[in-house]
């Protein structure tokens, strides 16, 4: 049986790993290469690394550093941050990234996404969906604004035949009070593509309660692995106990 993927997320600000709360108040949480090495040794199913400041600061991602991170990993790795051109995508794939995570260009220029999918294959083009709940509606949050309805954006990306959606609940980011299960079940109805849920996990029980809904995508998290004693393996043991298929 196909396992539910457990995916730690590393967010980087260009200098060190940081963890935000609701996309603000970053706290330093360590050295990316060491953290990647630890996650690899803990047998996580995949890894996501995002330079969250690259687009805002108009710089390219630090390729030599990203290569060192990828070199620590013998599982699939997704890299995001500051991707604007085919060259940016190619640079990341060439050093061993399996997927690239794109947000700004998907919002700005869907045509770019269509061409990237045609050229590189849909399996390596992941789309970052930063969703925020405002007065009962889910919107895409970008550059500190609500830009487009979640539903409209997902439909548009479905048309582009992208490979995967990484759905981050901005209102839950870093809060560690549980996943927004409504959000992921809504996205499940909007697409047949693989989905990665991110934002809010702070306890193994949070993973279990999302996996027990109709949502059967991947379970990603960040804060729990930095700020609590729980390791990915302990989360998996809890999922296993609840009869959710995981790789242990």
């Amino acid at each position: 049986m196909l396992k539910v993927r457990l995916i730690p997320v590393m967010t980087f600000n260009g200098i060190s790993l940081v963890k935000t709360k609701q996309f603000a108040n970053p706290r330093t949480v360590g050295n990316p290469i060491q953290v990647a090495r630890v996650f690899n040794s803990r047998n996580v199913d995949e890894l996501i690394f995002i330079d969250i400041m690259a687009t805002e600061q108009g710089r390219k991602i630090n390729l030599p550093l990203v290569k060192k991170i990828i070199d620590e990993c013998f599982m699939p790795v997704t890299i995001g941050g500051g991707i604007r051109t085919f060259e940016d995508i190619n640079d990341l794939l060439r050093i061993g990234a399996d997927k690239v995570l794109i947000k700004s260009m998907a919002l700005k220029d869907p045509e770019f996404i269509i061409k990237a999918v045609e050229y590189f294959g849909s399996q390596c083009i992941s789309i970052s969906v930063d969703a925020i709940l405002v007065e009962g509606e889910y919107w895409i949050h970008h550059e500190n604004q609500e830009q487009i309805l979640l539903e409209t954006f997902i439909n548009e990306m479905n048309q582009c035949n992208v490979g995967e959606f990484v759905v981050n609940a901005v209102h839950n980011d870093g809060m560690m009070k549980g996943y927004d299960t409504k959000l992921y079940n809504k996205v499940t109805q909007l697409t047949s593509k693989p989905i990665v849920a991110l934002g809010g996990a702070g306890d193994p029980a949070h993973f279990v309660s999302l996996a027990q809904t109709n949502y059967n995508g991947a379970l990603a998290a960040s804060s729990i692995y930095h700020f609590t004693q729980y390791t990915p393996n302990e989360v998996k043991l809890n999922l296993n106990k609840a009869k959710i298929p995981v790789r242990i």
Partner: protein
Amino acid sequence: MIAVIDYGMGNLASVLKAIRSLRMEAVTTNDPKEIRESSLIILPGVGSFEQGMKNLKGLGLIELLTEEVIYNKKPFLGICLGMQLIMERGSEPIECKGLGWIKGKVEFINNSRLPVPHLGWNKTYYPGDENKEDTVSNNFYFIHSFHVIPEEEVMCTHVNYEFTMVASLQKENIFATQFHPEKSQKAGLSLLKTYLEPHA
């Protein structure tokens, strides 16, 4: 020396990294001389079947690889698209000819209620052994929308995704996997070591 064929289709860096982590030597190449002199050939690959065949043809590698693998019996490892291309025919995006080393075809995963691509970690097993326990050592990382249907007797492992698909196949000097051993942590590295070590 192991030759990892560079034909513009996918993640060569990961394959190379995995082999080197096992302390074996490998090069990425499309140079006929280097391929002829290699001890083992790896055909990796991600992407469409038709594009893969076009690229092999453009580099003049169809005849060379066939000569090395089929006539000279050089050990061969195909990974993902590299497994699909050794079949007689593919269908991505349209019906087209493959290398034809194994009788059979490659088809879209369409008899499943589950999402396509088949993406993630799944258990592989020998036919008849489907109920064996799920462990870290028999789970591998898959990402594919097409699967191979052999039409001759080959040794294989299976994977279940609402129906049974071929996870790996072996015939004489040919071994090929639909999953990515280079992305499957300890289980994948162990498999690579087992197959490559005698020829490295």
